[in-house]
């Protein structure tokens, strides 16, 4: 099988996983030391955290099987920009921002209005020229969701 190259920021992500393993190990050991028997409430998470650290170490070791690690002499700032561009390409960042705003606004203004605006703005983000079409599609989708979920599935909407 053809080797794939490392993605931008993959090494950083693996290091975050190593860190996660260490943090969970520290938290688990605090629970485990209250009762060190194998059937105690802390034993299972303690074992899991050790295994997580082992697996994250293995993931680091396995880096050698991928095409060259990016160790070019680029400045840190350039590298960070490249990672951000990889994680949030195209319209992903605006969409994620819209999702966060939607989640914050939702409990305050209700489902129908917030969903209509979220969907309209998302569609406009992708196709800025089709504003009317986007508004009509959003109204249609929100209408269908309301009918299906409120009346057929009888789901309580936020």
């Amino acid at each position, binding site marked *: 099988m053809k080797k794939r190259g490392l993605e931008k920021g993959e090494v950083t992500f693996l290091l975050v996983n190593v860190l996660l393993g260490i943090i969970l190990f520290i938290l688990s050991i605090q629970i485990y030391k209250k009762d060190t028997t194998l*059937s105690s409430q802390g034993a299972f998470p303690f074992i899991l955290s050790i295994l997580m650290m082992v697996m994250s170490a293995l993931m680091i070791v396995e880096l050698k099987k991928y095409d060259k690690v990016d160790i070019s002499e680029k400045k840190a700032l350039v590298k960070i920009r490249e990672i951000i561009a990889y994680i949030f390409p*195209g319209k992903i960042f605006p969409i994620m921002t819209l999702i966060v705003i939607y989640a914050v606004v939702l409990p305050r203004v209700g489902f129908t209005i917030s969903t209509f605006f979220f969907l309209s703005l998302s569609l406009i983000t992708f196709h800025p020229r089709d504003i009317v079409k986007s508004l009509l599609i959003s109204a249609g989708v929100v209408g269908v969701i309301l009918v299906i979920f409120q009346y057929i*599935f009888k789901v309580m909407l936020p």
Partner: protein
Amino acid sequence: MLSIILNPSLIGILALFVFLGIYVGAMPGLSVSMACSLLISFTFSWEPLPALAAMLGAQIGGVYGGSRAAILLNIPGTTAAVATSLDGYPLAKKGLAGEAIAVATLSSVMGGLIGAVILAIGAPLISNIALKFAPRDYFLLGMMGLLLVGSLGSESNSRGIFTALIGLFIGTIGLDLVTGQQRFAFGNTYLMGGVNYVVVMLGLFGMSEALIQLRDLSVYPVKQKVDNLKPDFKGHVKYFVLTIKSSLIGVFVGALPGTGGDIAALIAYDQAKRTTKNPEVPFGEGAIEGLVAPETANNAAIGGAYIPMLTLGIPGDAVTAIILGALLIHGLRPGPLFMTESPDAFGFIVAGNFIGNIFLLIFGFMGIKLFTKIVEIPKYILMPTIIILSVVGSYAINNSIADIYWMLGFGIIGYLLKLYHFPTAPLILGVILSTIIEQSFRRAVSMAGNSLIGFIIDIVTNPISLILLVAIIFMSFSQSNFWKKTREKKLLNR
């Protein structure tokens, strides 16, 4: 019981969701796991059997639906249809798309029916054996499932197992079931109740998948002409032996905890390629056998995957893990006593597998024009809608805004995991299996006097536990780099 199983409204729901499932499976970007996780939350307030009918229908239709995109677009609609595209698409390019879809439909129905028969016969047998299982056996079975799903479904064993471990960890958050003390809750009242696995599923299969799909907004217009969409029962008879063989592979692989239709289909395809002497058309260039084998196996795997889920409470794949979650939410407890405690639910699942496949036979031969229209719905409309459905679904479980925030959080985590080639299915399986694995482990070590050596002695001196341990060791070894390299060397020397 028959009157419950043959209830017209249940059959109607099953039929409707088989139909919808075909289109979900057929659309690149939508998956059966995504559909079932959304359905859990939307059918939350329903009675258990209608909810089960909806999910079962979506699963049967969805697994088959993947073949349509594989044949017409060379893009498997589901992972279970990866092998289908190898010969399905070459057939479509030769102008035989209609024949290819007809063969895929008949094969899927045959596989599904055989899977249902084996489920009906096998589940009671396994249940009887499972009654003899001790807590250590459940612990070993759970670990086996996680090891398998962690290693088979990803490019690196360590990444798969790591995500499974994260899942197990998430499952430990909240009040300890034995002592009632907090674990990783940090005094937060929401966390004390534990993280709801439906919220995790919606984040990982709904929102994160939608974000991943939004990275590439390509539309796939259907360029192949589809005609002659008629079942050729007589012509299919010559593939009888292959159908039976592929079904058995499908059921067996599907029944292994942690594996699923995708692996079953690939193994069945490989077996067909090796054992079919003189196919009319070479494999990879439009061999009908290359279509029959994977399509039969992936649908047979559905019945197989239900066997460990219903009898042991250990799901066979990600979709049955979601359905296990649904059963638990509706107060049903899969395990060795499931058949005696919930005979209606068990009977309905078996009967639903039969009836659902009959509907598949009907719907599989119609609606192809509708399919070509639906598949062209732009992703930029579809994916934000999936995000909204995930929001609605996560709220519907407890009517809690906090659940929406957690779903969004898991959506972003899932997005990063997928971006860096980590599989997400082991994480879900880990969350769902966490309680059973931990409780079984704690009971088993208590019975062994809280001693690790005693626990190991218990395992090696009990036949069932020993068989499970040997299976785990064998599976781990066969997935190791050492084993893979040795096999590659042997193949090169031949």
